[in-house]
């Protein structure tokens, strides 16, 4: 479903993605972790071409993402993206936030889009907040709305860039619960996160990145209990000690 072939990316002289080769089959839940600056966010941002690449190929559902002639609108309509900072549209209500893409990209009629939006809102447990503006919501609620917004286009793939990193610890669980429920629906998910509990619970595979390269991969249990590389082992011990 998602393939990276010899992908390389530079920010000026900095080699942020170093020869990435990766294949993510349909329905897989992939967790990507690693230290700051390892390229994990950059990697998923390349999937929907929020970031371009200089070398290599990225293919999503047989569509070459890196190709300049690719219809980005069509590609992105099929991929939902959830940001660390939520990035809800502050000038719109929750409902309008969720309806924006279905109405303007898929050209769905407003009444139908409203129905879809309310369904997704119910899925994330925030039906009563439909008429409220993002500023009136807590961080966790905003992130759940952001997830509903991503789901509104009925994408096959959902990408999460550190979805809980900007939330208070007590709230993280609510967002993770929503994400766990998505897994049970067969969604293909790539999640950049440090939430190891989440990874252990639902991830099919964990990818550890460091300095732009994939250092190690394995099932959650293999990775957390028996890391093969020293770098992975030291990273795991560091995140577990707080």
């Amino acid at each position, binding site marked *: 479903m998602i393939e990276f072939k010899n992908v390389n990316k530079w920010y000026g002289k900095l080699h942020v993605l170093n020869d990435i080769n990766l294949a993510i089959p349909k329905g897989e839940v992939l967790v990507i972790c690693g230290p700051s600056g390892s390229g994990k966010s950059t990697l998923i941002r390349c999937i929907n071409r929020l970031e371009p690449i200089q070398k290599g190929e990225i293919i999503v559902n047989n569509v070459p993402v890196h190709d300049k002639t690719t219809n980005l609108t069509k590609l992105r309509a099929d991929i939902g993206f959830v940001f660390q900072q939520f990035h809800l*549209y502050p*000038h719109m209500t929750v409902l309008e936030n969720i309806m924006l893409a279905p109405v303007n990209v898929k050209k769905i009629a407003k009444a139908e889009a409203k129905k879809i939006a309310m369904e997704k809102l119910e899925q994330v447990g925030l039906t009563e907040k439909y008429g409220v503006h993002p500023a009136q919501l807590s961080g966790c609620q905003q992130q759940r709305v952001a997830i509903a917004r991503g789901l509104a286009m009925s994408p096959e793939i959902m990408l999460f860039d550190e979805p809980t990193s900007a939330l208070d610890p007590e709230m993280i669980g609510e967002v993770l619960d929503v994400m766990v429920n998505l897994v049970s629906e067969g969604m293909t998910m790539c999640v950049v996160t440090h939430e190891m509990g989440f990874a252990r619970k639902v991830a099919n595979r964990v990818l550890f990145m460091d300095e732009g390269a994939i250092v190690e991969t394995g099932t959650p249990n293999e990775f957390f209990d028996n890391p093969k590389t020293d770098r992975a082992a030291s990273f795991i011990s560091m995140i577990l000690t707080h």
Partner: protein
Amino acid sequence: MMAFYFSQLVDIFPFFLKGLWMTSKIAFISLVTCTLIGLILGIFRSSNNIILKRLVGVYVAFVRGTPFVVQIFIIFFIFPEWGIQLEAFSAALLAMAIMGSAFICEIIAGGIAAIPKGQWEAAASSGLTPFQQLRLVVIPQAMKIILPPLVGQYVLLIKDTSVVSVIGVMDLTRVGWVTVVRIPEGLMVFSLVGALYFMISYPLILLSNYLEQKMAD
């Protein structure tokens, strides 16, 4: 003597009203054209296309770096040498459009630049085209930032219309010059001119202050 001049002034007051009307016409038409052109230029200035950005940048720099009176002279006196003959009123409108749109361009571009990149990215990620991102997500948010300085710029543009008097347009300022020849009481005449300009700018000044207050919340 003062009383005599004052009564003469009262007599030709309708002449001042005509000048005020001309100034108002030029100001109103210019505000509309400058806003429309300035909006488009501001969007170009904010685009990812380096050529577009630079071109607009050069245009803006030139307009901001030269006196308006020089620009209007060039349009009115020098254009005819290149085959473009314009009557004073049209030249005035053209000059105002060129000058005002450059300043409004910067205000618009500033407002757009103030919108966090994440807003663009969130909109792009759901499949919206760059134009939809601008129209539905960025510009509506940028309007709040743009409005106060924009209205302030309108006040400046209304005052700038006084420059059109140098190419013979019978605006409020020129009425003052013509009047003071016959009624040589400069203070009296130009105080009246000033008061009439103030009358049309003050509502906008109040609006700008009000908007700035609202923004600060």
